[in-house]
């Protein structure tokens, strides 16, 4: 068990910098998820923690030791790879035992550790098989087992569920979560899937183009995204964005675009009044948009033409044309008879509106979190 501290960690390939001054403190026992679109440098960061990539600048501490130049085998870590990376020529048992044998653990102890791990993961019937005789889910479970047996200080996961089909992925997600209750080891988990990030992480680190965008709990990054990128990346369907003008009439601030106007509650207005530019980006989560007329006194209504409807059974998702831009609304009651080309009345609670600087995309309404 150990904490991990990254201080100004940089990765360069030649002169091409792919990870920029990353600062991150991971507490002992914490489960941190690095999330971002593919190519943003998540894996590179993780591999620097693992010691598979050299660190171009900055310091990395595991426990209280600087490990920049410590080879992977001496960092006391374990890693799960996207393609499982099982040793193809060894049986499941030998795969699990490999790391312990390398560390000269007595064979008796290896047996008991392997047994512990296999019981935890339900692998007992597979011990004598070779990896190619296993299904994807089973292979990934063996890869998890390979981590558990070693009892390392840190677990690292690089998109461990990406190669599985959707159903198995949901199942394995729960298994990892359950495993985490029994083996509370410090973990860093890389994924491009925001659902995994939200469900698994104690804290989520959102990355883009090698820069950390925001660090926070899942709810923080969902409710108070630091910038437009985080807002659009977290949550599905993605947040809607519109260019709006801020107009103050009779002491009421409203956000307006063509055929569109919402009035803002006082606390939002207070922050926005201080903002220099009159044009800002308005963000509305699809799930916050309701059908019909507002209830309560902070709701504002607007209308739009339905272009597409998606019936999911549990909910209805509709795409609307509002003020020349397309806006998605989800969580509409599936029984509602909305059909394409109809003009419908929608409303949204002013408190749920989020504003971003038109130029740099930074959030205006929320207190700036760790921004970059």
């Amino acid at each position, binding site marked *: 068990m150990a904490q991990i501290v990254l201080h100004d960690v940089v990765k360069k390939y030649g002169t091409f910098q792919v990870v920029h001054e990353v600062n991150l403190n991971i507490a002992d026992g914490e489960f941190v998820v690095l999330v971002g679109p593919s190519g943003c440098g998540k894996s590179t960061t993780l591999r620097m923690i693992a*010691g598979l990539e050299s660190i171009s600048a900055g310091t990395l501490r595991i426990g209280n030791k600087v490990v920049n130049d410590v080879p992977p*085998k001496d960092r006391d870590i374990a890693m799960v790879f996207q*393609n499982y*990376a099982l*040793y193809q020529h060894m049986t499941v048992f030998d795969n699990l035992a*490999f*790391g312990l044998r*390398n560390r000269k653990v007595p064979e008796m102890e290896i047996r008991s550790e392997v047994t512990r791990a296999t019981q935890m993961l339900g692998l007992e019937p597979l011990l004598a098989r070779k990896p190619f005789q296993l299904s994807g889910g089973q292979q990934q479970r063996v890869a998890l087992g390979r981590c558990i047996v070693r009892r390392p200080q840190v677990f690292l996961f690089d998109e461990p569920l990406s190669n599985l089909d959707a159903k198995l992925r949901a199942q394995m997600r729960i298994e990892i979560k359950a495993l985490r209750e029994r083996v509370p080891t410090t973990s860093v988990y890389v994924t491009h899937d925001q659902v995994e990030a939200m469900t698994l992480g104690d804290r989520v680190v959102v990355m883009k183009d090698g820069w950390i965008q925001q660090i926070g709990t899942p709810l923080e990054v969902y409710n108070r995204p630091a910038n437009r990128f985080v807002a659009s990346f977290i949550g599905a369907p993605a947040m809607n964005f519109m260019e709006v003008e801020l107009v103050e009439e009779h002491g009421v601030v409203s956000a307006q675009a063509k055929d569109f106007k919402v009035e803002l509650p006082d606390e939002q207005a207070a922050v926005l009044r201080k903002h220099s530019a009159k044009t800002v980006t308005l963000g509305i989560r699809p799930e916050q948009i309701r059908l019909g007329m507002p209830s309560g006194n902070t709701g504002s209504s607007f209308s739009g033409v339905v272009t597409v409807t998606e019936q999911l059974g549990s909910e209805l998702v509709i795409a609307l044309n509002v003020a020349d831009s397309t806006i998605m609304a989800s969580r509409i009651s599936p029984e509602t008879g909305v059909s394409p080309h109809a003009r419908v009345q929608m409303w949204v609670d002013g408190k749920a509106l989020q504003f971003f600087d038109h130029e740099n995309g930074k959030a205006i309404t929320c207190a700036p979190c760790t921004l970059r």
Partner: protein
Amino acid sequence: MIALALDGLRRAIFAISIVAIFVLFVGPIMILGVTSVRPASGAFYIWRGTNFTLNNFVEVLHQSQVLEAMWNSFVLSTLATILSLGITVGSGYMLSRFGGWIQRSWFATIYVFRTVPYISWVLPLYLVNTRLGIYDSYLGLLLPHIAVHVCFFSWLMKGFFDGVNPSMEYAALIDGCTRWGAFCRVALPAAMPGIAALAILCWLSTWNEFLFALILSGKRTPLITSTMAQFVTETGTEWNLMSATAVLAMLPALLVTIFGQKYVIRGLRM
């Protein structure tokens, strides 16, 4: 009707092509085979007469040089195979797994030296070998036969390792292996099928190699190909004996083709 006729024509052409392949590729070998079992008098006009004999083989094997040459070729091929693969496997691994200036310069080096014609360095190697006193000895033959494989095999080995997912080695590094350990215990077993196929091809190519044998071997350490060539270029008339020798020299190739076909094909495909 026309469609049916066309189909028949297509089938006929196909069958004829297959037969033509048989005739073209087996024909010359058959001619050699038949000559080798004809008595000296029947070696000419081999398609006339029906007396066959194995005396040619007996006679050839009694000439101590043929047996000795086969033994030498066998030892040389085996040693050259083990050593060539042994020294190029690391080189191929490096080319496949790493980047940077060392990798690039080594790749350029092996490409450049692969283009150099063999005669351009075997000719001076003859001078070196005579100077060092290893001309016409196992050592003097073995080392060039290894050197000749360095470039191409490094390239092929790179291909084998390119086909192995490197994350297994990363897992091994994290599981407590050194880089060398990850290479030996994880990457190498995974690349083994390719390497085994290459071993067979390497053995055959050394057995079949002629130019080096001609230049670097002599009376002391005769090799099978140069012995054969002597028959052809110097005697040139005892076709029955020559054919028997050729058939003997061809045996490993035949055996490998029949029993190790899978490996040969896999090796060639790389």
